[in-house]
């Protein structure tokens, strides 16, 4: 691989300075002239018919400029797919969770808006509600949506091979149930939206988002406006983690209000609203049955998964499938039967989450260790035995074009001192491993690809136009770094216009782990195209063939005779005069099977490529209190190629916090019926600086044939394998399996007490 000046180096991100000085403005920081402030009236009932909404008194309150209810919403329903359209973002007939939006007010200030809410009179007919998904599936349970019998929102059946026969032939079969409570993103930036409407019918929206195009399309459908009239702008976003992807009631309501009021409308949610009325992660009950051969090869897998989806479908079909797909992306599964059920309950809406499926992956990972123990194998060994390799095809038909899983497992084991620790540390201390693959760039129809453009200024600088979205991962910097590398320019000489649904070409967004692989590839292609155009024009000026030329530091020069050169600015000017202005363009669509569908046809190439990772967690269990402390984490991630190693490390470290210490040990929502007891940041326990282990990130580079410079993705590493690693480490430390997440101290203590009684 050729030496790179930029790509592959740890560089300072382009947005760090603005963020370090307070200049970076997030949605709640924005103001527009004559801006109004909006607040939402929410349902106090988990399930109720809306009989009447009387807003007359609110409308008469001085300072109130617009009030909207379901009557203003035209009854349009949204769903991520055509067959899941079940969500009226401002309902007219029924509310289905406590905290659902019923009406909204835009007024001159927040106090007036809040006062107006008190004046809105809503008549409800309270209906029986159901909160547990298993109960919701039973006959006689309250029906939440007319179309969903037994409240089943989505059923994803996936079957490969001959599962029943494989179980008969298996040497050993293990069955377990694992359970999960809900958890959530809890991004530090609360939800906010600013909407503005002009007399030409243009709607502008600023809201923290993972894909402006997704938001724009949904709004275009809901408001029955062409996409050209719905402009979702780029804005600094304070973390997403999967919780800013689909369209939310907030954007829809703000749009309705601004259209009605004729003035810009800003709505900032409280932390409570951000936790109850946007999205959360699913809770799950997973039944796993796994059959293996005597040498530890996985032969048969039967998985039943029941997800608590909350009141609406959200990204349901995707959310149901992903846990299984991640599993089949990791190990060879010749025979597998998966039945995933997403069930409606009268709870807030659940969606995609980066650490999606802790009961699932934690469970599968722990079960592997249990099986290994039964067979007398080391957990590392059983993983290596089953780990997929480059060139292999996954259970549902995806080919793997680059795979560093084996290397990742081996390196994580070696660097963590696995051999000297597993089974050998004093009682109370232990190590455990987790591993998984991760899809990069999955089928999203027309939205699965990205395109980018580069335009040049006559003094040699340029602007990259890309739909890439940055929620803090460093994606903006990444595309600039790539373009700068190709063009031999300094990063600061390349501007970026990004994530604007009006201006930037369609892009999949920070979704399906695709920013580097797809957006990065598109940016690279555009830069290569621009470079070619530049060299072609310069070849006339330098009397050399384009192949003899190089571009670096704002100069085009003859490689063998660098003193024969021309300033890039001059080339740009010549191009302008010749009427062939330099405009680079490039695009990338991951090579997926476009016939593949999440529910109806879950077969075929699922993703452009896959990244892989393995992590070893070392824990100390206080056997008197049950408290688990993660002391060290060693993790190896096959990210393909690290475009900016410092950014990749940052992602890996962040994963350890959110997927590891947080999601595995601390984070859960407690409920009383349909009410969340801990919808605040004191009682919803996000890990703090003092809760973190020492982290050793290891970058494994397999140089993917498709990825830009071989890069794939970085960020989902710890998120899904930390659950396994910690659960397994707890077993190594104190000999108990905790099958319920999060692994809180009371559960560990109870398990230890049961173990003592049993022995």
């Amino acid at each position: 691989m050729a030496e790179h000046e930029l790509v592959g180096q740890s560089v300072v991100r382009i947005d760090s300075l603005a963020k370090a000085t307070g200049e970076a403005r997030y949605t709640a920081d924005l103001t527009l002239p004559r801006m109004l402030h909006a607040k939402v009236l929410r349902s106090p009932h988990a399930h109720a018919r809306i009989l009447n909404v009387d807003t007359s008194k609110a409308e008469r309150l001085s300072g109130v400029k617009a009030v909207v209810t379901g009557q203003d919403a035209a009854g349009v329903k949204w769903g991520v797919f055509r067959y899941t359209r079940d969500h009226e973002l401002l309902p007219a007939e029924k509310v289905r969770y406590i905290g659902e939006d019923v009406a909204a007010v835009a007024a001159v200030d927040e106090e007036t808006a809040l006062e107006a809410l008190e004046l809105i009179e809503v008549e409800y007919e309270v209906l029986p509600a159901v909160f547990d998904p298993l109960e919701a599936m039973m006959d006689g349970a309250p029906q939440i949506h007319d179309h969903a019998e037994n409240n089943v929102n989505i059923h994803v059946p996936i079957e490969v091979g001959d599962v029943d026969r494989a179980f008969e032939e298996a040497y050993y079969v293990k069955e377990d149930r694992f359970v999960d409570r809900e958890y959530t993103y809890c991004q530090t930036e609360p939800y906010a939206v600013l909407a503005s409407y002009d007399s030409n019918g243009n709607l502008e929206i600023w809201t923290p988002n993972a894909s402006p195009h997704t938001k724009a399309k949904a709004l275009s459908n809901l408001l029955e406006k062409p996409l050209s009239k719905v402009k979702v702008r780029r804005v600094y976003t304070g973390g997403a983690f999967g919780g800013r992807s689909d369209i939310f009631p907030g954007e829809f309501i703000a749009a309705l209000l601004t259209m009605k009021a004729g003035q810009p409308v800003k709505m900032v949610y409280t932390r409570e609203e951000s936790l109850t009325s946007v999205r959360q992660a699913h809770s799950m009950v997973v039944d796993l049955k796994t059959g293996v051969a005597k040498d530890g090869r996985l032969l048969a897998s039967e998985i039943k998964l029941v997800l608590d989806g909350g009141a609406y479908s959200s990204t349901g079909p995707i959310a149901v499938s992903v846990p299984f797909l991640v599993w089949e992306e990791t190990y060879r599964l010749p025979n597998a039967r998966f039945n995933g059920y997403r069930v409606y309950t009268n709870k807030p809406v659940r969606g995609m989450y980066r650490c999606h499926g802790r009961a699932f992956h934690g469970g599968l990972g722990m079960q592997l260790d249990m099986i290994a123990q039964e067979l007398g194998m080391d957990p590392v060994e059983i993983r290596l035995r089953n780990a997929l390799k480059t060139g292999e095809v996954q259970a549902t038909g995806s080919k793997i074009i680059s795979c560093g899983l084996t290397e990742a497992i081996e390196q994580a084991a070696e660097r963590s001192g696995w051999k000297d620790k597993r089974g050998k540390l004093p009682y109370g201390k232990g190590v455990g491993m987790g591993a998984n693959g991760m899809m990069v760039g999955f089928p999203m129809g027309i939205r699965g690809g990205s395109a980018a453009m580069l335009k040049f200024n006559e003094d040699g600088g340029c602007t990259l136009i890309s739909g890439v979205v940055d929620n803090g991962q460093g994606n903006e910097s990444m595309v600039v770094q790539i373009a700068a590398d190709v063009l031999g320019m300094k990063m600061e000489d390349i501007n970026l216009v990004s994530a604007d649904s009006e201006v930037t070409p369609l892009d999949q967004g920070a979704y399906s782990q695709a920013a580097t692989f797809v957006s990065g590839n598109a940016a690279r292609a555009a830069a290569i195209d621009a470079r070619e155009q530049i060299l072609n024009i310069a070849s006339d000026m330098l009397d050399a063939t384009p192949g003899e030329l190089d571009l670096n530091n704002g100069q085009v020069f003859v490689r063998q005779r660098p003193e024969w050169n021309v300033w890039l600015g001059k080339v740009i000017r010549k191009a302008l005069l010749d009427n062939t202005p330099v405009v680079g363009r490039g695009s990338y669509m991951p090579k997926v099977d476009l016939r593949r569908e999440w529910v109806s046809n879950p077969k075929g190439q699922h993703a452009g490529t896959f990244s892989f990772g393995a992590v070893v967690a070392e824990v100390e269990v206080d056997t008197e209190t049950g408290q688990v402390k993660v002391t060290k984490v060693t993790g190896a991630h096959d990210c393909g190629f690290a475009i900016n190693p410092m950014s990749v490390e940052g992602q890996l470290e962040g994963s350890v916090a959110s997927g590891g210490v947080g999601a595995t040990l601390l984070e859960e929502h407690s409920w009383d019926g349909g009410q969340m007891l801990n919808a605040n940041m004191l009682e919803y326990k996000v890990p703090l600086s003092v809760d973190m282990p020492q982290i050793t990130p290891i970058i494994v580079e397999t140089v993917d044939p498709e990825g830009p410079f071989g890069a794939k993705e970085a960020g989902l590493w710890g998120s899904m394998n930390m659950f396994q690693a910690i659960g397994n480490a707890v077993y190594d430390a104190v000999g108990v399996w905790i099958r319920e997440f999060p692994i809180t101290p009371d559960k560990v203590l109870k398990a230890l007490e049961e173990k003592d009684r049993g022995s």
Partner: protein
Amino acid sequence: MDKRLVQLRVNGEQYDVVVSPNETLVEVLRERLELTGTKMGCGEGACGTCTVLLDGKPIRSCLTLAVEVQGKEIVTIEGLAEDGQLHPVQKAFIEHGAIQCGFCSPAMILTGKALLDENPHPTEAEVRQAISGVVCRCTGYAKIVEAIMAAADSLQGEGKHNGRT
């Protein structure tokens, strides 16, 4: 409610603002003075993104009444750089990749600066303890701690002990 004229000293400048007693410092900073670098993440003192320095100490501006801080030195993130020169803690955050989404960064940077003003040679444990009241969801805190330790080194290297602004 009687509104009151208060004189606030923010980032070395005096601001005369008419406020109601029920306005918190974070609201006045963000909405009246348009210093939006200080964030409102929860309004309950649980997340730390509203952190400002009050007479050199990090506090929760969402739990501080504006009328009660007249005559005190308030420093927000916008006031850290001097004459266009970034504070070493800001520089270190940028150079060490300690900023991802950036929402907690003003609070982390101010807290780091306040720590180093008081304790120029903190151990890693002391750094972690000092920032334990600010939530970060992106970084896992690793590079934030690294940056503050590096800033401590660079401050010592310069032989200069940055006093209170």
